[in-house]
């Protein structure tokens, strides 16, 4: 394929090499955590980062099979295309899927739906996630988090230690000289592992292009009925209910991230394939979370606060 890539003047060979180095690093991390932990799980949201993560995990153990299950923390606020995609992928990779449901957490009283006109279930995922980790006795959870996503994430280690309450304490992180991973934990504690720590959004898309990683269709341009809220285009239907005075309209859009459908915005885009998305990403002037996540724009330390509560 031709790589039209305006991010740097790097040649296709150089791009391939730099992405291959990131792959080597990620596979090394995945193997290390699998070896050191008793019962890890891979968190899979159906988003592009978790798609890349699953792809890497499968490669790490080939021709063997994935030695751990995959877990989807299901907010119930889904894009239909993502659930279809998730089920096809699970079938293809032959992995064991666990679904941890936020709806069940709400029904059982473990979590309380946010009140107000626009409840998002993003924060509630932490409750469901921690309950599932305890129930299945997972000692490590792989996530697709990247340090370039957010300023709190930029401070997080590859292996992020979580206490009995699932909390992240940025002041008490374990140093990781030479990226040497210390997976020692006590009962009740667990680890989050971020093999994509050093990847940027551009690296992710380059890798998707080079490796032909399958993605949900909503990552590419399509026609959708949306409503504009706080400068964000939200898909009408499902959790997004029209409010008084709001006018839905048709737009050619795509998604830069996949999250809770009630607070994940689409961007106007004509990019219909990976090459076109790469051009768009390289020219983007707004971060993917800034452009598409109402929850992260809520406050300056929204991500840090959620991570302290046990978020991904």
């Amino acid at each position, binding site marked *: 394929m031709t790589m039209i890539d305006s991010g740097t003047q790097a040649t296709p060979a150089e791009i391939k090499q730099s992405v291959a180095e990131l792959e*080597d690093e990620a*596979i*090394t991390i995945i193997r290390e955590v699998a070896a050191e932990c008793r019962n890890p799980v891979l968190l899979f949201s159906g988003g592009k980062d978790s798609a890349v993560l699953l792809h890497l995990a499968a490669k790490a153990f080939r021709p063997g099979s994935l030695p751990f299950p995959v877990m989807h923390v299901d907010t119930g606020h889904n894009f239909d295309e993502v659930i279809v995609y998730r089920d096809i992928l699970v079938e293809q990779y032959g992995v064991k899927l666990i679904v941890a449901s936020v709806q069940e957490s709400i029904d059982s009283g473990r979590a309380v739906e946010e009140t107000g006109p626009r409840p998002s279930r993003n924060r509630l995922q932490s409750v469901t996630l921690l309950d599932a980790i305890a129930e299945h006795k997972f000692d490590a959870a792989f996530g697709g988090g990247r340090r370039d996503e957010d300023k709190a994430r930029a*401070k997080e280690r590859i292996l992020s230690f979580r206490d009995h309450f699932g909390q992240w304490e940025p002041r008490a992180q374990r140093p*990781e*000289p*030479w990226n040497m991973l210390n997976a020692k934990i006590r009962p009740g504690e667990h680890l989050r592992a971020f093999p994509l720590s050093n990847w940027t959004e551009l690296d992710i898309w380059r890798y998707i292009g080079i490796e032909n990683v399958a993605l949900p269709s909503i990552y590419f341009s399509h026609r959708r009925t949306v409503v504009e809220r706080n400068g964000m285009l939200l898909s009408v239907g499902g959790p997004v209910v029209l409010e008084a005075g709001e006018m839905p309209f048709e737009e050619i859009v795509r998604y830069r991230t996949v999250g809770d459908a009630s607070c994940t915005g689409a961007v106007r885009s004509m990019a219909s394939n990976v090459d076109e998305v790469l051009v768009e990403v390289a020219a983007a002037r*707004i971060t993917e979370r800034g452009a598409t996540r109402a929850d992260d724009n809520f406050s*300056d330390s929204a991500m840090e606060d959620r991570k302290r509560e046990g978020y991904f």
Partner: protein
Amino acid sequence: MVLRIATAGSVDDGKSTLIGRLLHDTKTVFEDQLSAVEKASTRYGDGSLNLALLTDGLRAEREQGITIDVAYRYFATPKRTFVVADTPGHAQYTRNMVTGASASDVAIVLVDARNGLTEQTRRHLFVASLLGVKLVILAVNKMDLVDFDEATYHRIVAEATAHADALPAPVVLNPLPISALLGDNVVDASTNMPWFKGLPLLDLLETIEVPGDHNVGARLAVQWVIRPYSTEHHDYRGFAGRLTGGSLAIGDLIRVLPGGQQSTVIGIDRGGVPQDTAQPGEAISIQLADDIDIGRGDVLVAAVASESPIVTDRIIADISWMVDKPLETGSRWIIKHQTRTAKAFVSAIELRHDVATATRSPAESLGLNDLGRVHLNVSVPLVIDNYDRHRPGGAAVLIDEATGMTCAALMIRDSE
């Protein structure tokens, strides 16, 4: 190639401002990040755009105007891609600097032009030397506050050069005068300092040449054994790990250490795809001609290597102590070296490095931020290299069995 940079400086030397300036002037900062910084500048400062807030992401950092923990930033120019480890200069300063420097090609050491070389600067230069970071950019910052005075700059550079010459391992100093706040010699050459003829910082970073690793011969510390047990791959056994030290090809003769058995490489897979050869850094799995008992922690080594590793249970290592609880002679820890985890007993503390004077003194114990040299007895034999010859074989960490905390970084120098 990606250039990995560690930045170091004392509190208020302007590290975060410098990184913010690099990100801002290379147009790496996105609009929403910039508007968030503008908002925060009003809240935490005097309202003028505070570039340090681009990297100081935690609430406590913003409130106190300090950097708490190592942060990683990524930026690219048309010529090169960069990863910056921003290592804060207070409290756990040595631990942060060691962590940042451990994976870096270049260290940028900041000096406040008003203060000249401080103990912290000497410490940073010492850590760079101890960790094997050969290239150091000495950025004399805040030149605007000394009227861009040439003599001040040269005095600081002369002092730093004298200190660099006394370090345990040589480092190459690349000095330059800057103002991170105003942008002088960061991305664009300074018009305020026409007397400086060198490259501005970004040009230097784009063109600086990193010396390659020593070729000691192929090493592969086994992380995991791939056994599919499927009909198709019934007898498949792949020893998975990251290749270091040298390249490897099908047909190569290898030795298994510490066991000593020999065999021939008959297959190399990278991400499940067969290939004939592998290069250092690649995450691979290899198959051998013989059925040998090999597990996690064992190291496969090229039988014909330019340098052989040492198999020993007694090691001598430089150490960076990273926690409040002191290290004492006779104490026991968990050691993690490559993919081997074992128990370690501190048989002797040989010395403490006095970083300010680059001299050594005897020590009974080592405390937080101390650098020293220790002798360890390990419960199983390790396959070690001298850290300066082959980093992966010479690097290790100590872990506190009770708390699980990583307490020390070890640079192995020799066997006892």
